[in-house]
């Protein structure tokens, strides 16, 4: 009997207890480079079992590594004694019971397919292309492989395999440290086009050759790169969870089915989107499916998990906000930039943090290429800038949206980390508040 079958058996062996298991094999091959050379390559692996044991409304959780049946049974016996001493959680009703399954596709291990030699060849080619401009490359090239079994006493027995690839290259000028960024994320490396990647980053490097200037704080029309609007949505996602509603920190409290943003704003959580890193289930084992969050400016759905769905009497939807897709508009990139008399093009954001989560006020900085737009053209590099804004105001300030969207990957990096992606267009935002300059690039 394999270990996951043992876990299923344990669920039925203890009549007075219920279990939720996450049994996971995880591996990463993580290359980090700087100054167009390797910093280090790291290989890491782990096998872990996270268990929550329930006795009525009491629960206790534990994690063990390299689990075997004997070790698990010992831990369960310890946990039985502990759980009896604990107070009840009156809000706990039951574990997940969603029977829907995904296709649970087999996926090959990209750590093997995209090995270290292959990665170094790719980086060498990119580094060489940028040498004539006196730019060097810095960044990460990651391949992960994970197999996760989610098993519980309500009959959930599901498997999710993922093997995402993440390549993020920052080209940094040796002359003045001006930086530009290009990234790739996906699970099928056949979709990676090295020539296109190199061409894109080279074009950005060329744009970054211009004079570096400072600008005054104040309100600007800005064109946000897909990465930036994606990051604002990712931050706002903390207001989209049922948990945030329960903790009274959601901007969307009391706004279900109400108009919250302009008509042209539609945001979907789409874990099956062909251009994104896909997911099958949420952490409870609920099928994770396409969910409209904002539709034509109307707030449609929270991200509802099992615990808070039952507690708040909301329909569980399994959505996790890990695959956000923003609908496109009808302007080309040239038209977006071309419509700006004097404004900014912002490539990337850095160190954002909420000042007040409920009112969506944040501060953060621009990074990796901020440009001045004058008379519809990118004319100069601008020092990194600080903004202090409300995300809701930024979205309400979107005047135009590009007619195509781009895949932007994000790596969470910590622990047995995952990689996700969003699909976003460029947007033109009016009245974006720059609060100070960093005086540096």
């Amino acid at each position, binding site marked *: 009997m394999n270990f996951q079958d043992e876990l299923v058996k344990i669920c039925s062996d203890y009549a007075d207890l219920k279990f939720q298991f996450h049994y996971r094999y995880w591996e990463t091959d993580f290359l980090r480079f700087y100054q167009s050379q390797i910093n280090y390559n790291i290989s890491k692996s782990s096998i872990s079992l996270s268990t929550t044991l329930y006795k009525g409304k009491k629960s206790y959780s534990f994690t063990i590594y390299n689990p075997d049946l004997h070790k698990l049974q010992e831990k369960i016996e310890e946990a039985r004694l502990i759980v009896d001493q604990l107070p009840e959680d009156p809000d706990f009703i039951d574990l997940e019971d969603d029977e829907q399954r995904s296709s649970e596709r087999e996926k090959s291990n990209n750590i093997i397919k995209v090995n270290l030699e292959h990665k170094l060849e790719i980086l060498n080619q990119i580094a060489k292309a940028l040498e004539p401009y006196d730019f060097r490359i810095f960044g990460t090239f990651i391949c992960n492989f994970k197999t996760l079994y989610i098993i519980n006493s309500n009959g959930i027995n599901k498997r999710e395999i993922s093997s995402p690839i993440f390549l993020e290259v920052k080209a940094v000028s040796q002359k003045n440290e001006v930086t530009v960024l290009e990234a790739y994320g996906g699970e099928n490396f056949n979709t990676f086009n090295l020539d296109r990647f190199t061409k894109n980053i080279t074009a950005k490097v060329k744009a970054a050759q211009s004079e570096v200037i400072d600008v005054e704080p104040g309100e600007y029309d800005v064109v946000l790169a897909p990465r930036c609007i994606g990051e604002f949505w990712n931050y706002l996602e903390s207001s989209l969870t049922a948990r945030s509603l329960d903790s009274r920190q959601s901007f969307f409290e009391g706004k279900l089915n109400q108009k919250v943003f302009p008509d042209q704003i539609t945001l979907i959580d789409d874990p099956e989107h062909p251009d994104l890193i896909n997911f099958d289930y949420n952490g409870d084992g609920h099928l994770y499916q396409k969910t409209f969050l904002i539709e034509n400016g109307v707030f449609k759905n929270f991200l509802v998990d099992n615990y808070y769905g039952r507690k708040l009497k909301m329909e569980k939807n399994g959505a996790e906000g890990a695959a956000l897709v923003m609908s496109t508009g009808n302007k080309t990139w040239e038209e977006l930039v071309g419509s700006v008399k004097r404004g900014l093009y912002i490539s990337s954001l850095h160190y954002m943090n909420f000042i007040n989560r409920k009112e969506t*006020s944040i501060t953060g900085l621009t990074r990796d290429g901020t440009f001045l737009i004058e008379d519809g053209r990118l004319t100069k590099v601008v020092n990194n800038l600080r903004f202090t804004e409300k995300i809701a105001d930024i979205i309400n300030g979107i005047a135009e949206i590009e007619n195509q969207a781009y895949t932007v990957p994000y790596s969470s990096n910590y622990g047995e980390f995952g990689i996700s992606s969003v699909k976003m267009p460029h947007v033109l935002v009016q009245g974006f508040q720059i609060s100070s300059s960093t005086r540096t690039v």
Partner: protein
Amino acid sequence: MKDIIKRIINKLDLPDVTFADVRFTRTDQQMIYFEKGILRSFDSELDASALGIRVLIDGCWGFAGTKILTDNEIDKTIKKAIYNARSGASFRREPAAYRRQEPVTKSYVFQPEEDPFAMDNKYKIDYHQKIASQLVGNDKIVYSYVYTEFYRQYKIYANTEGSFVDSLVYDTMPMMYVLAAEGNEALCRTWPGHMNGYRGGFEIVHREKLPENTETIIKEAIDLLSAPRIEEERADIIIGGGHLALQLHESVGHATEADRIFGKEISYAGKTFIKPVMLGNFRYGSDLVNIYSDSTDQGGLGFHLVDDEGTPGQKVDIVKNGILVGQQTSQENAPLLGLSPSSNMMASFADDIPLIRMTNFCLAPGNGSLNDLIRNTEHGYYIDFTKTWSIDDNRFNFQFTTEIGWKIENGEISGIVREPTYYGITPEFWGACDAICGEENWKFHGTFHCGKGEPGQAMHLSHGVAPARFKNVVVNVKA
């Protein structure tokens, strides 16, 4: 385990291996978390063992780590570390510098007064339940939590030069939070704030006096709903120790990590405005500002006998009388700056690669008490309890918001203000420091969650600080 590590070291004694080290950690973590008066999770991760092997071949580091500690997997990990170094050497412009060190063989055991892993679970739960119950019941408090994280780590460090060091430490981090709301307004208070990690066991939970402070944070959170914001453009501010620890951390601590100077963190954490030529002459702050890194102080979370590449713990000046004089360095980066390694290479777990990290990074005390400083301030604000933090890629432009501020008029507290938000440029801000309180107000404030590196690592570290005053700071940034 010691024998296994010795065997691994022997296997790494290969002709092309310039240097290798092996680390083993066994970590226990436990967390008690009550939300809105109810136990939401009691979670343990015990005996989490990890192994990490780092080798230097042809001037290139290779690393492999695993939590799967079978003989077969350990052999695989050795081979992967060597493969990573050998293959990586083909994409290396300059070889990583390396200097031999004297071997160290020592042991250290920290004994907590109250071992949280040996205590009765019921006592721990009941203790937190009582606090959680005190945080609910007021109509305006719409959300609250209280938690404590307990941590114990046994570590072995060994290298091919003969060092063999093992240590056992305990760290504890308690916290409580309330959110008051009225209409669309929602404002919070915490205790003891976000720099709440300390070396010790359950005695830390007792020492931080959570039950005694529940009423205060509830009242302050509710009062903040009707409190004004700061109106002035600029003002003098006195920053309390908990928040000053983070100010020091972000604008001096990270800025003086030498790996940032050489671009090794550009891809994620960022760079630093500091250049090698600034060492010994750059004015970082006023004459009063003396900052040092001290991994020999057993009171902080950053104490160690050796760092994670075998350099013995030490105290190093970073800023002396306002002038930048030192950096936090490693074996590889120190020679590039003409410095000796400062014992700052640390990893969170054995299967993480060591990076330059703060250990006990401190602002030396000045003179006088906090009460004296407030009395000597004609007009200004005393601010504490971090709410928001943000700093740029070069550690030059920062902006912080605290949960609460106290207005000072003619040397006396005259009321509170909500979400004071100040911004500054690092050397200008430290240059505006005109008073630092004395030993009586100096203490360690620590965290378990300093993020850095790729793959990311959350480090335990401490900052020793006393409250300090900064003149004419921009204080009314608003969204």
